[in-house]
Each structure stands twice: as C-alpha cells, then as structure tokens.
C-alpha cells in the first residue's frame, strides 16, 4: 500500500468513479423523492375519514389492507433480496426485460415508500387535534385541511427523517450491484478487478460515499432552516402602510 497507488487509481479511473457516483446519486435522489411521494399519498389515504357509508368504507378497508401488506413486505425483507426478486421475477413472470437503471430506481422508490409511509403516519399523528378542528370549523373539507394546513406542517416535521432516509439510500444503492446496476460500488468492483488493488480502490469509493452523504446532509440542514421560517417579524407602523398601501387596504 502506498500513496502512489491511490494517485494512480484516481488518475486512471476517475471517469469510472464519477460515473458510478453520478449513478448512485441519480438512483438515490429519484428513489427518495418518489418514495417520499408514495409515503405522503399512503399517509393521507390512511387519514381519510371512514364515515358510515357502506361502499366507501369497504373500499377504504380493502385499500388499507393492501397498503399494510405493501409496507410490511418491503420493510420486512432486505433490499438486496427485493432487487433480485423484482429484477429476475419481472422477466420470468411477466416477460419484462427491465432496464437495470429503471429497476434500480423502482426498487429504491418502493422500498423508501414503505418506510416513508410510517414516517408520514407519525408526522400526521404529531399534529395537534386543534389544527384539524380549526380547519373544519371554518368549513374546510378533509382534502383542504390536509393540503393547506396539515401536510405543510408534516413536511417540515418529517424533513430530518426524510434526510436520514436519503443518506441511507445513497449507501444502500450499493447492494444494487447484484443486478448489475453501474453505481459506485459496481464501478469500484470493476476497477479493483482490473488492478487487484482492492483496499485502495474501495478506500477511494469510501471517501466518495462520505463526501456525497455529507454534502446531502448539509443541503438538507439548509432546507430545514429555510422551512422553519424567519426568526424575526416586522411590526408594521403607519409609515409602512403609507409606503405599501396594498397591505393597508
């Protein structure tokens, strides 16, 4: 082991490392976004009032049962196994030859969705009942309450957990090398297979993962601060009204 080897590996293989890192970022970013959307949708479906009506109640019950199975299945099995099952299963059972990148994004999305569904559920439960009541009392229906009052607060509350999921996704996409997705781990394996310098190659990969997760964490912190709003407010005086008559109307 020597420093020369590190420099050699980087100078000879940087395009492969970069392509791998890029692929890792693309898969984990799209996967996290789609997964978060799945989680939000499931979370909102779970809160639809059951009502007394027959058909609606049964339909909701069936949907909820399906969603529970989905969440339990994808939380209860390892992503590396899910990748194999989905990728080879789609070919065998449905004759679909999945594009590997698509398969990767698909698996990360539904896996993240299962976790996010629980995170969103917790987020909605953490909103005080009074917020729902106040919205209902001014005549908002369930969807208006959710979209304009509850979800904006939920999103802010679940942002740290979502960021956590994102960081985990960046690392966990490495298991997708089993279906031949050319993400960072796969690329590093190829590089090391050529030069037989396993430690040095993977140490470089290690640093690249670390840089990606640290940058992502910092970006999310920035958004958290943004979302918690301005710490100060301005008390408007008469002069402000004169300058900004549109507010004094």
């Amino acid at each position, binding site marked *: 082991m020597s420093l020369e080897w590190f420099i050699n590996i980087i100078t000879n293989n940087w395009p492969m490392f970069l392509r791998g890192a890029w692929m890792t970022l693309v898969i984990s970013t799209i996967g996290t976004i789609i997964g978060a959307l799945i989680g939000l949708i499931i979370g909102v479906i779970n809160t639809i009032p059951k009502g007394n009506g027959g058909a609606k109640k049964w339909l909701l019950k069936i949907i909820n049962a399906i969603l529970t199975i989905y969440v339990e299945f994808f939380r209860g099995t390892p992503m590396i196994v899910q990748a194999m099952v989905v990728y080879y299963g789609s070919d065998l059972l449905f004759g679909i030859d999945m594009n590997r990148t698509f398969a990767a994004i698909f698996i990360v999305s539904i896996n993240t969705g299962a976790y996010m569904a629980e995170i969103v559920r917790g987020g909605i439960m953490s909103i*005080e009942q*009074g*917020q729902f*009541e*106040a*919205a*209902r*009392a*001014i*005549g*908002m*229906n369930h969807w*208006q309450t959710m979209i*304009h*009052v509850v979800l*904006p*607060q939920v999103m*802010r509350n679940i942002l740290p957990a979502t960021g956590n999921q994102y960081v985990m996704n960046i690392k966990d996409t490495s298991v997708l090398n089993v279906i031949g997705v050319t993400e960072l781990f796969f690329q590093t394996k190829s590089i090391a297979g050529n030069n037989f310098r396993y430690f040095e190659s993977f140490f470089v990969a290690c640093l690249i993962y670390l840089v990606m997760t640290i940058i992502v964490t910092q970006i999310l912190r920035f958004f958290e601060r943004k979302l918690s*709003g*301005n710490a100060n*407010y*301005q*008390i*408007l*005086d008469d002069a402000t009204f004169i300058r900004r008559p549109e*507010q*004094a*109307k």
Partner: protein
Amino acid sequence: METIIDIQHLSKSFGTHEVLKDVNFSVKKGEVVCVIGSSGSGKSTLLRCINLLETPSGGEIFYKGKNILTNKQNLNTFRTHLGMVFQQFNLFNNCDVLSNCVLGQTKVLKRSKDEAKEVAMRYLKVVGMDRYLNARPSQLSGGQKQRVAIARALSMQPDALLFDEPTSALDPEMVGEVLKVMKELAKSGLTMIIVTHEMEFAREVSDRIVFMDKGVIVEDDTPDEVFNNPKHERTKAFLNRALK
C-alpha cells in the same frame, strides 16, 4: 328577531357517559349568550355540538329553520356560517397572521386573494393585530394569538361566533385584552355564544345567561335574574363558589 340556532332535545354520550341530557336552547340574531357552569357540566360539548365538531347522539339542531343533522352534505357550508374561537387558539402553525385570516376565505368561500386580504385587514384592525401581519403564531403571546383567532373567525363573516372558554388558557394579564375585543364585538351587534368562567364579563355583556350543571340547562334567563335572583339551589351554590 330571527332565530339563528335552535336546539331541541339534544343529547350526547361518550360511551356510557352521558354528557348532555335533553338540552333545549335557542339563540336569536344579535343576542349575546354566555354559558356558565362548573367544569364537566357539558358547556363545551354543547358548543362543539352546535357546529358539529362533536356528533350529537340525539335531538335536533336547526340553523335558520333548517335541520342540519339530516342535511349533512352541506356541513362544510354550514360551518362557514358559524365562527369558532378555541380555548387553545388553534391558529394554523404553518401560516403567518395574515394567511391565517385569508386561508379560509380563499379556499372555502372562494374569495379572490385581494378581497380576502382586504377583509382580513379590516378584522385584524378590529382586534388590534393589524401590525403583526407577517408574524408566525409561535412568535405571539397568548392574548395576541387569541385576538388573531377571533379575526380569523370574523374574516369568514359568519352569522354567529362561538367562543369555547376563550380566556382560560391565558395568563391573567392577557385576559383583559381579549375580553375588551369581545365586549366591542358584543356592542357591535354580533351574535355570540360564549362558554366562559369570567363571571363579571358574562354579567356585563350578556343578553342571556345559561347555567349548566351535569349535562342539563338549569337556568336560562337575563344576567340580572341569574346573578341576583337565581331560582335553583344548584345555581346559587355555583354562583357562591364562582363569585367568591
């Protein structure tokens, strides 16, 4: 005067616990009615049944002659006609002061943004909060929050305003500013139903006082009669404790 709310034989149970028993009570336009009674007497439940935040177990509620319990598809429209002010304020935490007063107007009443802002500003001025437009609820004191909550309810321009112990969660020195706003509203001819523990306030602003005990209305009369000449032992006992 037109009757706005008419409640007949209303009952409400939580499980086997009967909170309201055969309550009959009505409110006319422009009336200010204070509901008093000890904790657990069913005052808040009665108020929450009026705009159906709680579903009554039995009885009828008429709004301007229309039975709202048999006509539930218009529930959300009905609720816009009754404003509600909560003990815990319940301002929308994701909105600043102005948006709190605008949101319901634009989303439920489908008013234009400009019109909604104009209406909101008018009522924020009434409650003296028009200088805090871009403050968030977490940055305001309890009294300020409650005044914004009153402005939010007024911005929907309802026929009546329901107050559920509006000063009970406030520090003593902030009670005054909220009661002052409510007194002005009462003078302006707004129909108000107020659940309160503030006896002096109730005596001063009410056209009628309703005294509740153990889920029934014991006394329903003018403030003068209820405070100076209570007919029932239970009312006397309560007033003795409350006015001490």
